[in-house]
């Protein structure tokens, strides 16, 4: 069986998984007491002074209109049917707009940040790991180790808070709480000036998530490479008189990369989750803070759609890692294909 067949089979296997995930994500939202209408009622009571009893008929009508009076199973089936037939993920109650639009506004910039974060953190992690392993116990290794450990142990929201404090209260930076300055938000097209303005707003998100993201990779790469460098085939390569650089990059590094690549599969959901706390603290409108506010507001279709998105990314990420591994390692390729 060829690679395409393997790919198709793997993709088909994800369908039951996605159905299971969709059921679980729908049930999780339903498990929490209260729904969006409860939330609407308390907000309206607070705003208008209307009593609970006065609002009850309107709340009932609202539940009916939003389909919240239906049994959970029916709500779920309608939701799935609309997704399959119309790619309609339902309405966001809070935003009064389709979920696809609410997430759609935030998704491109989230992906832009997330993909840059994953790529940069992995590249930096791998390079730092190589540097640390080849300079074991020297100053550079200790420095890389300290940076990596700080990235692991300091929670991201703490680093974000420190940056926010500096930005807002010490530097009085005008670049907080958005992805663009007001004058660029109205521009529909991207320009160099708008991109530069974007970078000025989002660098803290990139900085913190790259820092936190590279740490694990650095440690893993360092350990793997040290192991690999002691392997017999590396010794052999050295004995053959190959240059130090060639030994390292041709023989040792590709073999030390396996676990890093395998781990990459689990990094895909980090693309969405990795920036949540940072974006919340810094007020950057990506998908991350939307998850939190939607859960708080019981905006169930938004939450369910995001859960699904994260799940799909995770599935795709693992698939991607498998493929990548097969590509870099002929042994894996042969084993995978014969299994498939």
């Amino acid at each position, binding site marked *: 069986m060829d690679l395409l067949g393997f790919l198709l089979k793997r993709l088909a296997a994800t369908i039951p998984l996605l159905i299971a995930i969709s059921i679980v994500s729908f049930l999780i939202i339903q498990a929490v007491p*209260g729904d969006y209408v409860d939330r609407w009622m308390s907000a*309206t009571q607070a705003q208008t*002074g209307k*009593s609970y009893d006065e609002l009850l008929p309107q709340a009932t009508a609202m539940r009916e209109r939003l389909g919240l009076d239906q049994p959970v199973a029916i709500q779920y089936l309608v939701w799935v049917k609309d997704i399959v037939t119309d790619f309609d993920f339902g309405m966001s109650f809070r935003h*009064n707009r389709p979920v696809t639009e609410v997430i759609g506004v935030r998704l491109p910039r989230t992906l832009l940040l997330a993909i840059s974060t994953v790529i940069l953190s992995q590249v930096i992690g791998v390079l730092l790991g190589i540097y640390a392993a080849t300079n074991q116990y020297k100053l550079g290794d200790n420095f890389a180790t300290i940076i990596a450990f700080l990235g692991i142990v300091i929670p991201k929201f703490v680093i974000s808070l420190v940056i926010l404090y500096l930005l807002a209260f010490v530097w009085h930076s005008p670049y*907080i709480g*958005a992805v663009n300055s*007001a004058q660029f*938000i109205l521009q529909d097209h991207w320009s160099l000036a708008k991109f530069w303005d974007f970078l000025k707003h989002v660098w803290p998100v990139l900085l913190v998530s790259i820092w936190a993201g590279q740490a694990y990779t650095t440690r893993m790469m360092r350990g793997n490479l040290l192991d690999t460098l002691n392997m017999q085939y590396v010794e052999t390569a050295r004995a053959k008189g190959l240059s130090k650089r060639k030994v390292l990059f041709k023989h040792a590094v590709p073999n030390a990369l396996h676990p890093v690549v395998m781990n990459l599969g689990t990094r895909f959901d980090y693309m969405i989750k990795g920036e949540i706390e940072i974006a919340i603290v810094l007020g950057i409108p990506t998908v991350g803070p939307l998850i939190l506010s939607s859960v708080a507001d019981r905006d169930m279709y938004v939450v369910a759609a995001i859960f699904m998105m994260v799940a799909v990314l995770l599935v795709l990420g693992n698939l991607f890692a498998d493929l990548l591994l097969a590509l870099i390692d002929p042994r894996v390729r042969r084993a995978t294909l014969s299994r498939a």
Partner: protein
Amino acid sequence: MKDSRKLASLLAVGVCAAALYAGTSIADPMPEEQSLAGLEYDLIGRDDLWTYEALPEYHQAPFLDALVESGALPPVEDRLPAEPLVMQAGAMSAGIGEYGGVFRHVIGGRPEGWNILAGQHQGWGGINMATQECLVRQGPRWQVRPEEQTGPLPNLAKSWEWNDEMTELTMHLVEGAKWSDGDPFDTEDIAFWYDDNVQNADINSRISKDAFGGGASLEVIDDYTFKFVFPTAQSNTVVEGLAYIQGCPGPSHVLKDFHPDYNADMNYDDYLNAMPADAVPIPVMGAWVPVEHKPDELVIMRRNPYYFKVDSDGNQLPYINEMHFKLTTWDDRTTQAVAGTGDWSNMENPGNFVEALKQSQDENSPVSAKFGPRTLSWRIELNFAQNMTDDPYEQELRGLFRELPFRQALSHAIDRDAVGQALARGPFAYPYIGGFASGSPYYDPEYSVYTPFDQDKAKELLAGLGLEDTDGNGVLNMPGTGEDLVIDMTYKPQRTDDRKQMDAVTSQLAEVGIRVLPKTVDETSFDPMRNAGDFSAILQRANFVLPTREACGNLPVSDICPPFHLSGPDGRDSLPFEERLTAITNEMSATDDAEKQTELANEMEQLLTENLYNIGLVQVPAALLVNKRVQNAHPGTPVFMYEWAEDAVIRERLWVPADQQMEEILPGTVAVYE
């Protein structure tokens, strides 16, 4: 005021006598309060704020001259009513303003749509108030002298009168006011609002059909006069129900086309979404018109060239040309205000006060923190509905809650100064004893009966109720069931301020032998649980500022009010003073005599505090963070009193000196309607 003080001393004597009789000293005076409300300011008369009159000449924002010359707009005098609403310069803390500039809001809300008649909101945080004008106005009343507190301030309705039986309320609109697209604002809009929206059960309007004067009907008299006819006699307080956000008409000339009664092709969902959030501009009566909406990012508004208000020099308001609402988070609002990237924030979290104050006192800080009166108060609500539980333990516990000495013991056991310091170090917190928050216009310390920190007294009172620690575990045992006295106290753990107070109260009550078991409930589940009376005790922030506005949360005014004492199937097992509280509330609603209302409020304060209807903890002021370049943000403006501060501060008269104005994003433009 002198009379009220006399009455106070008489009452105080009465209270002392009662206290002596009861063997307790409950008439301690409240400790002296330190105000943080910045500059001193004078309260003024209603007419000092604004009047309606024709002025000899009118002026407009300079950029509008070009639009008038090109014929895009009629001249300013033709756009204004014959007698516009005139904001008096004497009431402006920084006087007549300069035109131009930008005002930046940061909000956590998102616009649902612009159909206010169908109950859609625009995201709160002042965005609704920028576009909506209502028949009457409440916010600026905080600045009005007590003797002129004769009801709401006029706005779109410039005057109103009652017939002798108080069954007919005739209101007069400002003549010649226009929507921002130039369409006349008249009784057609009023009739559409009331008859086709409020009275229509399929539409979720902001005012309830039956609650407004028990089902009033509307009669249109002419273009600018209409009449509400009520089935039973009413009081002037029903007019308060016509302020933001209840009595704010929408543009009938746009909405009628989408209303099922006028267009058979439409249904109610079409009507609800007749003015979607993205479809701007829309016609408004407010000072600014939304012209751009980038979902999740920004709403931009430009000045309404037809706005019906001027200053006393004849300058058409608002002064500020452009209004931004950055759509981020509520937390971000304060951060951006302190950083200087937002111009305004209501600061309500005492945990931030010290840092915000420190920041704003720095000479280079872009923001000034204006502390208002103390209107934020925290308290413990005890469930008195003994007849609504079958559980023997809960019944005995609620029985104890119903005993005045038990409530006094709780109050004596709480060290409010310590609770306040746990909340925010410094002079922010002041003891709260239940009743009106000290920033309320109805608060008078003479009528507040204080039960100060006194552990010995608390223990004595508890012993008097037969509570003793029979099993030696440090917790008192109840005389009936013999169980440990453990109070489940519900609170919202997300609120840091509530959590800090819960910690303090738990340890303080433990010292007199009462065990508190803090119980966390998330915000969404909290209200349904509270409204159902499904709790033993609650610790929460509940701001009681005006006796008629928050009546249900605080007073026994109907079967479902207050939540801590619901009526059971056989009615309410009322405490002796509760019936009088109900009567006072009704008497207050029935009169618009300011003096009489004050008298009744004083009696209410006395009843609430001497009976400890709630166990008050502490009260703090809220602060308004306003960028220093913004003028006319009156010192002392409360973050919330008659209405939220965005209304109370009168934004249409805020201004920024020309040399400090920010560049506008859409200079020289106004909303263009297709």
